[in-house]
């Protein structure tokens, strides 16, 4: 398993708890940092001294700065351009899907209502992105 944090960008505390739980049940051991809105996520990403996360789990509908805007800024910045971003959201709206991929999302997962399925999804995400997937070369900070 790759080292590094998982940045969970999620404004709903219930979902933050449930996502942590699902990741834990899916045996994803990486520490989870929660950003409660888009601005907090950007602050974390671009704050000096913070290591880049190994994976960003990004909700779309967020206060202050929404998920697509966060993605856009990440992809526009040299430092965060290659960080894997998985959109994890309730919606499977076509416009969200199109915009997410257009802005450079690596994956798009719709949160299942059934928690067992969600738990399975979390395990698969961890397995894929933190184990199977070869991460981008670490960028200079």
């Amino acid at each position: 398993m790759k080292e590094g944090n998982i940045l969970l960008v999620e404004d709903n505390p219930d979902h933050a708890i449930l996502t942590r739980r699902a990741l834990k049940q899916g045996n994803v051991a990486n520490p989870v940092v929660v950003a409660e809105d888009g601005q907090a996520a950007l602050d974390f990403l671009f704050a000096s001294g913070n290591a880049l996360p190994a994976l960003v789990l990004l909700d779309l509908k967020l206060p202050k700065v929404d998920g697509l805007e966060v993605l856009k800024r990440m992809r526009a910045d040299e430092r965060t351009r290659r960080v894997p971003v998985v959109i994890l959201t309730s919606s499977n709206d076509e416009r969200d899907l199109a915009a997410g991929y257009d802005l450079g999302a690596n994956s798009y997962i719709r949160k299942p209502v059934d928690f067992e399925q969600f738990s399975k999804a979390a395990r698969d995400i961890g397995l894929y992105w933190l184990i199977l997937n070869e991460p981008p070369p670490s960028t200079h900070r």
Partner: protein
Amino acid sequence: MMLVVLISLVSITVGIVDYLYSSRMQTAQFESNAARYESDLHQLLELPLWNVDDALIKKIGSAITTNKEFAYLSIRDEKQRVIYHYSKYDGDIIKRELVVRHNGQIIGSAEIGLTLQPYQAENRRMIMAGIGIAFLLIALLFGVMRWVLSSLLKKPMDTLIGSITEVVKGKYQQLASPQTYEEFSPIVSSIDTMSAVVANREESLRKKSEELEHYFTSALDLLCIADTDGYFLKLNPEWEETLGYPMTELVGRKFLELVHPDDMEGTLQALSTLSAQNSALNFTNRYRHKDGSYRWIEWRSYPVGTMIYASARDITERKRAEDEISRLNEELHRHAAQLEQQVAARTAQLEAANKELEAFSYSASHDLRAPLQTIDGFSRALLEDYGDKLGAEAKDYLQRLRAAAQHMAGLIDDLLKLSRLTRADMALEPVDLGELACAVADELRAQEPAREVAFEIAADAIVQGDKRLLAILIQNLLGNAWKFTSKHPRARIEFGVAERDGERVYYVRDDGAGFDMTRVDKLFIPFQRLHTTSDFPGQGIGLATVRRIVARHGGRIWAEAMPEQGATFYFTLPAAPARTPGSI
């Protein structure tokens, strides 16, 4: 006439010849007379001159000059002394000099002047008398001829003239030939021939004019002959009907009196066109009917000199219809404009509603599901973490909580799908419904290979539509048929095409559970189900989806069913446009 001229010429010629002859004879006579006078005078004067007896000489002179031929006489002695002198005429005088000698010695002279005048006067008298006689003869001849002709030819000529007069009057009988004069028969037969020919021509002319008159009086069109001064000369009976006046009030009437004041200028212009010997075609104006209303008349007029030959038509009804049409057209345009306005307003409203709907569905897809995840997630967490502290009933409640949350999530998804169908852009193309049906049938059989279901799928069901939406349509209908035949051991599902009232109708028929037709009105309403979920699972969104798709294609859908006898869903869709060669 020739005879008269000939007679005149002959008598004049005879007169002239006679005149010339007598002239010549007179001249000869005159010459001999002159010679005689000369010798006589010489004899008479010799002695007196010798004796110088002047008295005797004078006596001799006056005696001889009594002769009317003498115009001049001058007697002189040898010394040229005039002893006697006589002069009568100034006109043409032939003078002769006579020398009187005695024993060879000249003793005197005499000058004699003779005139022809008396002869000439005689001659003239003679000629005048000749001419007079000639004229008298001619006059006599004329009189005689006239009498002869009139007395002999009058009767036959009168007969002939009488007959010709009859012919002139139009009675073409055979001429009565005068019996006494054979010479008239060629004239009579010529005139007979002429009269027969004229009679023939007149008859054919009469027939033609009768024919024309028949046409004139029986024509449906308005026919008229007028003059360029603006008077009706002859009209056919149709005019009485059209203008309401009896013929007697129309013929000879100044037609301009009947023309609508607004059309007067145009009518005068047409008249001047006709006066210039140009025809006036498709000219229209209004004529006043006796009842005061106006009739639209359309004209075709041809001029011949000062006459106008015209056929016309009462186009009042046509004009009225045209006016009505243009009025209706205007109304239509106004309505169309109104309608367009309404459509624009509705479209704006619809667009606003659509925007709202989009915003709603976006929000719904994010926000309505999130609490359900929370409910399900924490229920699951309770079961996992505190399962040992919960009784069986508590666990059951939590399971029910989770089931409800998941069900609701399903409903939300279906609703979102339905609203997406409403919004999605359609890409129209020819779509083979039979092909789609075959694919769905294969899919269904693969899911439940144990079932005995016979599919019958029509070929050549090609429509114009959005392939993605039509696939959903077929999937729903065949999926329903599959589902509602599941309780029967054997089933038959048919996709077909039929012709109803000249319209192509597609249908999906099964021999499954069917339904009660009294509840057919609930069939296509979202989440309205005619069967319980335990009998046949489902959300009740499929047929609502189907109806939405058919409606978006401009078609209709309806159903016929009997409980346990199966159901048939009919729908219409626009046909694919006919393929033209060279199109892709």
